[in-house]
């Protein structure tokens, strides 16, 4: 019981950390919609009542770097303003699925045609669901509300109003729905024993897409995590249909978005929406399950892609406070830690502004117009229309995410340096018997090998088959090493419990892997230099 609760909480904390950055981005976009674009501008941005509304909505969604939790404050705002319902659902589903970073990452994972096929099929689903949702709400005679533009303040007061709005959203509805979404992860982490999903989605298993569809409803996954999971599934020869279900239902929606839809559109309509979405996704998943099986990849009979949704602790083992800290906080990336801190500060401000300082803040916001609000249009002291400011903010975000691609995927020479450090850590720790440390560095090296591919491709406009073959080979060897080290750790554990335990003879195999990994690393340097 203790393991189940601790495991669930660890998964919850990891989930919040991975969502933190995209929640903040989502809140930022929601404030832009509310205080800058306003009702008219926002409706126009999402295509208004025109036929291009659905494709326009998913296109904007694909450009913005948000996840299925980060999209919630935007949905709340879009609903308040009265954006067409089909457009809201198209945006809600498409925005978390892909963004420039994840698409580039995805293209390195398996044959590009598979990822492009997945993207096309996803957009088909999004469009069909948008049309269905529009027709359901129209047939029920639900009209979009007409909202007056509320924001009259300008200048610094508007910026302050934006911060207050974002913080209050986080300490209010957005925070509540995010909490519900994370509850799904807590639940899975508590009920599923460590590694329980390793053999659930095998290629030959006819039920794999269906099982994944059922489990995926609980899953909250940011786009980059899903991309890496899809890659692992293809590398291990798992069911492509199950991968598709994970992408659409695991990344596209979460418990929070389902509850938000139910509260805003009613349980019956939400059920129709959810059942239609699940049915279409499952039908497509079964349709692509056979044709997309990659040739030449031998099914490994398992996958570690979903270990992250199961309990991180082995049943029956006692957990210490330091272990809990290591698993929930220490192993987080620097970006996640930073995001978590920023989110906590914002949440504290939000709670304070809703409770202790509510009156003071309201007075500040409602204070009579000051001198700044009456600046005339002379010289550089002009009032820029807020739509212009808002659109500049959104375009800036898209530009920033493209720039972010280049920052996230550095140039090959820099990545090769990082890989050198990670490789030394992996190999020296594996040789000296410090297997836990080696196991911590293996995913780091794998991650850098993928970034090397993308970083090279976006700068040199090419990724040669030899380069791909070498990085793929490195990851294959690292995975084999990972398994060997895990065996070794198991043996150590078993030996400490039972002195007569017969160990596996893996330690020699570990030593033979070292020169092999070094050779591939040398080849990688030659290939990418």
């Amino acid at each position, binding site marked *: 019981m203790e393991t189940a609760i601790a495991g669930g909480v660890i998964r919850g904390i990891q989930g919040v950390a991975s969502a933190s950055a995209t929640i903040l981005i989502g809140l930022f976009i929601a404030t832009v919609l509310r205080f800058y674009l306003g009702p008219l501008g926002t409706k126009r941005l999402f295509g208004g009542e025109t036929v291009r509304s659905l494709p326009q909505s998913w296109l904007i969604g694909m450009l913005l770097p948000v996840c299925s939790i980060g999209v919630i404050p935007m949905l709340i705002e879009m609903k308040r303003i009265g954006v067409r319902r089909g457009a809201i659902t198209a945006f809600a589903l498409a925005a978390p699925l892909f963004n420039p970073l994840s698409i580039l990452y995805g293209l390195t994972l398996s044959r590009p045609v598979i990822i492009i096929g997945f993207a096309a099929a996803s957009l088909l689903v999004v469009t069909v669901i948008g049309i269905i949702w529009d027709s359901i709400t129209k047939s029920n005679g639900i009209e979009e509300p007409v909202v007056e533009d509320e924001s009259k303040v300008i200048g610094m007061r508007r910026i302050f109003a934006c911060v207050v709005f974002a913080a209050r959203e986080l300490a209010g509805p957005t925070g509540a729905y995010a909490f519900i979404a994370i509850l799904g992860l807590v639940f899975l982490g508590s009920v599923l024993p460590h590694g329980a999903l390793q053999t659930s989605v095998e290629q030959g298993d006819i039920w794999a897409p269906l099982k994944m569809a059922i489990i995926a409803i*609980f899953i909250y996954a940011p786009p980059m995590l899903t991309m890496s999971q899809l890659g692992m599934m293809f590398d291990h020869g798992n069911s492509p249909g199950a991968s598709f279900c994970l992408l659409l239902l695991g990344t596209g929606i979460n418990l929070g978005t389902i509850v938000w839809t139910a509260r805003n559109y009613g349980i019956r309509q939400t059920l129709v929406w959810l059942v239609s979405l699940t049915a279409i996704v499952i039908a497509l998943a079964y349709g692509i399950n056979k044709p997309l099986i990659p*040739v030449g990849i031998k099914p490994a009979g398992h996958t570690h892609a979903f270990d992250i949704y199961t309990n991180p602790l*082995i049943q029956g083992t006692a957990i210490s406070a330091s272990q809990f800290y290591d698993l929930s906080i220490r192993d987080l990336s620097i970006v996640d830690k930073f995001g978590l801190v920023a989110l906590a500060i914002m949440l504290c401000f939000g709670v304070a502004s809703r409770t202790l300082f*509510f009156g003071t803040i309201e007075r500040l916001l409602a204070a009579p117009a000051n001198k700044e609000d009456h600046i005339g249009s002379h010289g550089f002291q002009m009032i820029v229309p807020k739509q212009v400011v808002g659109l500049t903010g959104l375009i800036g975000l898209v530009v920033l995410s493209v720039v972010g691609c280049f920052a996230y995927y550095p140039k090959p020479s820099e990545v090769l340096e990082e890989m050198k450090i990670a490789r030394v850590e992996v190999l020296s720790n594996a040789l000296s018997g410090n297997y836990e440390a080696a196991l911590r560095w293996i995913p780091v090296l794998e991650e850098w090998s993928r970034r090397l591919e993308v970083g090279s491709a976006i700068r040199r406009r090419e990724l040669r*088959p030899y380069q791909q*073959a070498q990085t793929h080979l490195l990851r294959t060897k690292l995975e*084999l090493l990972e398994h060997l080290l895990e*065996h070794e750790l198991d043996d150590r554990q078993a030996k400490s419990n039972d002195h007569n335990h017969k160990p596996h003879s893996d330690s020699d195999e570990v030593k033979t892997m070292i020169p092999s990994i070094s050779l591939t690393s040398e080849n990688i340097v030659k290939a990418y230099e």
Partner: protein
Amino acid sequence: MRTLYIQIMFARCCLPTIGIILSYGMIVSGIVGCEAKGTSLKERESLHEIDHDLPPYWPSSMNDAATKIEARLQRLRADSLKDEEKAKLFVELTDLIEWTPEVAADTRLKESHWIPIYEASEAIRKQLPLNEVSFKQVYQPLEGLIQLLRKSDSFELATRGSK
């Protein structure tokens, strides 16, 4: 007052959700429970028991790949093979062709020398999976690939020796 608002809001959102999660969770637990019946963690000797086992005919070098492809070609030319045997050989041959670029990449062979092997393998791959009809079409290219693999293997050995 404000605190009360937050409490009510969380309670209104969270309580029904927890109810839904618990009931839905029973289904998931059922699925995973049934799933785990055959391969429960307790039944397994180790948590990491499921491993990446290399197939027995995985080639250890380019020369070994050439030998293994050649052996299967010769067996397939014999008329006395049963259908199951033939099908098995086609599968193995398909795998070997697929693996060839990876085996060649796992050597000190330079990129310029690796490309011909990759291209030869890719050309043959277009005819995959192998069967009676496609086998006839890839027979000649396969002979060429075997030669190329042997030549590259000796070249790579010589390069390694000179270093």
